[in-house]
């Protein structure tokens, strides 16, 4: 079935290339390809390779020692903890925001859509600073928090807040266009058939956005674990307590422990590679289900 689609698609591409009207001269092709490959190698592939090369320069023993060190371990745990809180929160917020924007009409919808993008347009350092100004010792709620012995800034809650802020758009951004394209009709059909709001969401809406949602969560998670700027401002860099992996890398590097810094960095690089693999798989799955359905209806008609 999908072979049919693939065949048609490649025919179109091939026709585009073979056709004299749309074909570029050989030297143009060669020049463009060289530039693209050079850029790709120099700015993407080389840095990635360097991370692993530097990490292993002093051998596997140093590499594992750097990862096994207590501060590094606690940074890993903290990073996982922050992501484990921030990602589910943003899953819920993003889903709710996308649902509201895509399926309902209300006053201020445009404003909400713009606000969702705010974390993308604001520098992460500013985002961190905002929380310091609100919850820090000299901030608005500072005195009250100190009185009640609640630690926000230079503690885990602050890290979570900053991470939630920075990663907010990922899930919502992914879902809004998808849900808008799918329209409201299936939900309306479910409601007329007597399904409650929750059942409509669970049995009709959610299965339709499954792949988009997973995609958004994967990206959100990658950013949550890798975030530096905002987290750096609210963390206070207390070793073993408020250092996440990216912050730990910076500290090690500043202390000229290059091998250790790159060893920890290689963890983050591996995370990025893993994210890419999952992302490609999810994209492929989503496309697959779409293609099959399109293709089958084509065959029938």
């Amino acid at each position: 079935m999908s072979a049919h689609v693939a065949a048609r698609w490649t025919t179109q591409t091939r026709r585009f290339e073979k056709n004299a009207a749309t074909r570029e001269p050989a030297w143009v092709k060669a020049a463009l390809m060289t530039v693209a490959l050079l850029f790709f190698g120099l700015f993407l592939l080389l840095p990635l390779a360097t991370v692993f090369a530097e990490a292993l320069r002093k051998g596997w023993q140093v590499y594992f020692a750097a990862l096994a060190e207590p501060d590094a371990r606690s940074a890993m745990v903290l990073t996982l903890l922050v992501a484990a809180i921030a990602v589910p929160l943003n899953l819920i917020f993003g889903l709710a925001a996308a649902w509201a924007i895509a399926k309902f009409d209300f006053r201020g919808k445009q404003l909400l859509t713009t606000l969702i993008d705010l974390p993308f347009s604001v520098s992460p350092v500013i985002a961190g600073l905002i929380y310091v100004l609100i919850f820090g010792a000299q901030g608005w709620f500072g005195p009250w928090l100190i009185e009640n012995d609640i630690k926000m800034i230079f503690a885990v809650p602050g890290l979570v807040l900053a991470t939630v802020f920075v990663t907010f758009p990922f899930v919502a951004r992914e879902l809004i266009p998808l849900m808008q394209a799918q329209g409201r009709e299936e939900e309306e059909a479910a409601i007329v058939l007597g399904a409650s709001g929750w059942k409509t969401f669970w049995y009709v809406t959610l299965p339709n956005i499954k792949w988009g949602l997973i995609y958004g969560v994967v990206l959100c998670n990658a950013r949550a674990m890798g975030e530096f700027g905002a987290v750096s401002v609210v963390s206070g860099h207390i070793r073993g307590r408020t250092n996440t992996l990216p912050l730990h890398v910076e500290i090690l590097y500043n202390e000229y422990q290059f091998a250790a810094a790159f060893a920890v960095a290689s963890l983050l690089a591996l995370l990025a590679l893993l994210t890419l693999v999952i992302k490609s798989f999810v994209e492929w799955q989503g496309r697959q289900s779409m293609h099959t359905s399109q293709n089958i209806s084509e065959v029938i008609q």
Partner: protein
Amino acid sequence: MSIRVQNIVKRFGAFVALDNVTLDFPSGELVGLLGPSGCGKTTLLRIIAGLEAPDSGQVFLDNHDASTADARERQVGFVFQHYALFRHMTVFDNVAFGLRVKPRRQRPGADEIRRRVQDLLSLVQLDCLADRYPAQLSGGQRQRIALARALAVEPRVLLLDEPFGALDAKVRKELRRWLRQLHNALHITSIFVTHDQEEALEVSDRVVLMNRGRVEQMGAPDQVYEHPATPFVYGFLGAVNLFHGRINGYQLQVGEENLPLAENGFQSGTEALGFVRPHELDIDTDLASRAGIEARVERVLALGAMARIELTGAMGEATCHYEVELPRERAAVLKLSAGQIVRLKPARIRLFASDSQSAEQAPYLPVEHMVGGYGENI
């Protein structure tokens, strides 16, 4: 179950979708809501279903005020133009959905659900497709599944929103006949929305004609076709020729020419519009006769039993287009050819006063020739 809507008003911003609509849909009938796009027919259907809230007015289902009832509580079956099947569920699961989402106490057992879904699938003659996904079905099959899904919850009324709008002409015709048979078997009060007059006249027990958020006429198909209440209805149901003129006793004066009229209630001197169906016009090749109106043959289309002749006439500054339908033998006798000047003689004219509402909205008016005027500064 009967449906009654009373003084329904619905606005979308400045646009008035429904302007004080009151209608009665008798129990057990299949009623066609007919009108051009944007006339408010789909909005009315959605208001009855509870998918849209009216700005004012009430909806009565079985003489109970259902205006405040949630769409879930109204027990209506709704069929969407684009099917709205749940794309990730099989045909079986689609049809079973309405039964499975019932509160636990009202929910039938798994065997009972299976039996009822099978019954419905055989009712729509698609029992063999239970395991397919909607994407694996043709448009006509999808719409039948959508209908089975709507019927699964035993709705009190069935609402169909342009159910055949997305299908090609042949499938549409089949499904139309099938829907009529299904309604004869089930006798569930049904309303279906369409902009296709042929479809409405063929399928419905009763037709409601809507235009610009108002009801123009309601009646049996032959009644609205034979006795249109307004110029809009006349123009919307089938082709029509229009003669713009002034009443002069028993004549309608059109430009320099006169058309004989029967008894009419108009005063002499009244501006009036005369409507004549294509089959009510005859063609006279004898130019010596002063009866009828002069026109020029543009095209002769002899297809099937009837020949269709397109003509133009000159009236004032606007060129008028006419259409005449003659039995093929009659057309053969006349030996018409393009460019020939002939006279048109109406057998029957239906008159409306010129200022009567919606005359200028009718879709059949001759296109005014726009002349010049771009200014010199271009």
